[in-house]
């Protein structure tokens, strides 16, 4: 041995109770997982709503809800990647719209098939994402400002592409893709969405790029010092987010069957996607969360809103409902470091006592 300044076996002490990992603790750890919470809550909503209106659980309805949720789900996956790097992309709605329009026009006028439309949608999205990435990583513009700017610019691009025309008639292949079932109750779109989510979950967790995303979001300076090319990772995240928004455009087009100059922006799809990201457990401060949660949260939002309709709530309440769910989801996260409700209450009581 060498140079111990003061030979002290200080650290031999161990907390008691090591190894007493009870089933209860395992269960509570599991329940703390956002993904599981979302599945459970969605199932509960399903059960309650079905008790009220039995058709809610029909294969047809499930299929519709899943297909209807997928545009948001795919965009939320992309959004999650950007948020994990501590960024945000507000411009996904016009990216979706532009991709939907471009593919839609070619399909309407030149019989472009969905499979041929796919690379086009991805390329349009990736190109627009590249623009965002450059502004954030190379020009150093804060993400929220950069993409607020590109939200306006890309909306303009979408209007130019639309040229006051609409996509209204599409080849039947699109309708099949957008509304058909692969198996009874499982639409094609759900398979695509789930495939995207799983693929990106693997990329994030088990590739060099994915690791770099978490590292950059956690601590960009430490990432640089660990040999990670921070700008390249950041640009890539926006490109992927854009490409997935492009894919979302194709999905939207196939599912809805039409597109115009305000597709995407008119339904505020970028905010719904950000909501799904946050409800899915990814934190805006970066470096924490994952795409599976966002994917499940998109489905949860769809089901919850559909349930409201079943209970004949006026659709006027929908946006407020989404807002409440975002806030509840953030409050329900025990790991945000935000003081819990209980400790906040305790502080309040203490200050009251101190005053008297």
């Amino acid at each position: 041995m060498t140079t111990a300044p003061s030979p002290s076996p200080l650290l031999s002490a161990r907390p008691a109770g090591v190894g007493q990992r009870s089933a209860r603790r395992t269960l509570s750890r599991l329940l703390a997982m956002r993904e599981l919470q979302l599945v459970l809550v969605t199932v509960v909503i399903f059960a309650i709503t079905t008790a009220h209106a039995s058709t809610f659980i029909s294969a047809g309805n499930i299929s519709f809800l899943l297909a209807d949720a997928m545009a948001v789900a795919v965009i939320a996956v992309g959004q999650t990647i950007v948020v994990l790097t501590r960024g945000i992309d507000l411009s996904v709605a016009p990216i979706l719209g532009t991709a939907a329009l471009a593919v839609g026009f070619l399909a309407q006028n030149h019989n472009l098939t969905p499979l041929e439309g796919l690379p086009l949608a991805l390329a349009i999205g990736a190109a627009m994402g590249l623009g965002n990435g450059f502004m954030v990583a190379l020009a150093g513009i804060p993400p929220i400002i950069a993409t607020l700017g590109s939200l306006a610019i890309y909306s303009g691009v979408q209007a130019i592409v639309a040229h006051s025309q609409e996509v209204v008639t599409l080849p039947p292949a699109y309708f099949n893709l957008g509304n058909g079932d692969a198996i009874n109750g499982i639409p094609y779109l759900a398979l695509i969405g789930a495939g995207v989510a799983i693929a990106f979950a693997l990329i994030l967790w088990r590739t060099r790029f994915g690791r770099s995303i978490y590292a950059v979001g956690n601590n960009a300076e430490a990432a640089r010092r660990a040999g990670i090319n921070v700008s390249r990772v950041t640009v890539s995240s926006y490109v992927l987010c854009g490409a997935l928004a492009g894919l979302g455009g194709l999905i939207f087009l196939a599912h809805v069957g039409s597109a115009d100059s305000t597709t995407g922006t008119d339904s505020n799809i970028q905010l719904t996607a950000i909501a799904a990201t946050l409800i899915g457990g990814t934190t805006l401060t970066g470096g924490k969360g994952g795409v599976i949660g966002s994917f499940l949260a998109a489905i949860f939002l769809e089901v919850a809103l559909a349930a409201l309709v079943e209970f004949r709530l006026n659709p006027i309440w929908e946006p407020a409902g989404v807002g409440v769910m975002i806030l509840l989801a953030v409050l329900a996260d025990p790991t945000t470091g935000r003081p819990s409700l209980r400790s906040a209450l305790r502080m309040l009581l203490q200050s009251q006592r101190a005053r008297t």
Partner: protein
Amino acid sequence: MAVSAPQQNVVGDAVASLAYEALEISKSFGGAKALDGVSVDFRPGEIHTLVGENGAGKSTLLRVMSGIYERDGGELRLGGESLERLTPREAQHRGIYLVPQEPTLMPHLSALENLFVGIIPRGRLPFTVDWKRMRESAGDYFAQLGLAIDPRQRAETLSIAQQQQLECARALVHNCSVIFFDEPTSPLTAHEAEMLFALMRRLRERNFTLGFISHRLDEVLELSDRITVLRDARVVATMDAADASRELLVNEMVGHQVTIQRRHARAAQSDDVALSVQQLQREGEFHNISFEVHRGEVLGLAGLVGSGRTEIAETIFGLRHAEAGRITLEGHQLVRHSPRSCIDRGLIYLSEDRGRNGIFADVQLPENVSSAIVPRLPRLRGLLNRRVEQRLAGEAMERTQVRALRRDVPIRSLSGGNQQKALFARWLLAEPKVAIFDEPTRGVDVGAKADIYALIDGLARDGVAIIVISSELEELTWICDRVIAVYEGHVTGELSGEQITVAALGRLIVEEGGA
């Protein structure tokens, strides 16, 4: 807020200042004692300076006395009155003000607004501000303190020195008469420091109670009336400045127990140069830096904070770019190198600020450890082989003795010492040929320190060339074969073997030894 408007007659007149005593103060951070029964008294009309090595407890004491930290035990007595729970607000209310090392002004507000924040005088109408009165009294304060600051200037456009002066003025505006300065001079140039000293002397003449922390012993001896030396969380001596000398202070600071630690002797190092740096230069940071490190050698880089030592290391590692000079790693000259290319060539750098530049707080332990070598991990169908990764990270953590009950926890849940060991594991995994460790034992407990010294020694025995940067001179005497000292960006001397003593190092890092 409609607190009494600042009284202009305070400036210029002597204030009725109170003595402020700390009695048997103790304070721990997570088991590590930062203050252990410390008693210091600050008297009116006197500059009382605290000196000591890093971590001796100087800043902690001033923070306890100004209400930033809550004390664990002991008593604070202001003008004979015992203070119960002291909050920063309460401290300021009682006239105690701490000028922090890095000024904490509001960058986008004007100097004027910063000066009066919290006690902005109300105008004649509700919800208005009496700008005229603020401007006039600010002008008074500035004039009488001899400050050349434009009250309309935004705080962020002021120099650090001006920001500190503004902090002093703020203390006056808030009617404070006990003013503490926590290492104010380390970011200042010599000339700026002189201006600050002039200001402090002016305050002393007006009977203010002044506390001061500095590492620069020359200025301590020049400015102080009394000096208290802290070591390892205790007061070891309090003396009149007239009785003090640099020699005496250094001895008290480092203690006489230098011999507790046996210098270990490694076999003679090889002559193979692993890293050579020639005439490295960056304007305003360092110039003409040349040295070599051999395989199996531990080279110390001694210097004060701000001496350029970290900047040199970051330049070698490709985090900054040299304006001139040459860096040669294992016979290969590094040109336009980045951290990645350095790591791939076997040069690693453990940054000094663990929280800011080291850990990924929310990422789990194994992924934190493997983060620098992800490109080298084996893949199965394009996906990282998690099992191999976990095994490698686990082995590295065993080698560096990371103590954690579970591996699948975010690194933030570990103690500072274990976080540091995890970072050592990260860099060991990279299989370095040359390793630069910047403050490798900062903020870690005694046991972890010993483990880290053993690790560094083990690496050297395996033939790794090592550079250790440290403010703890004792540490350098324990682990280094050779030490070079830097002061204000240039090398002031080199010591090797038995020449490496705290006293000799202490002289070199304040340039007494001469260049």
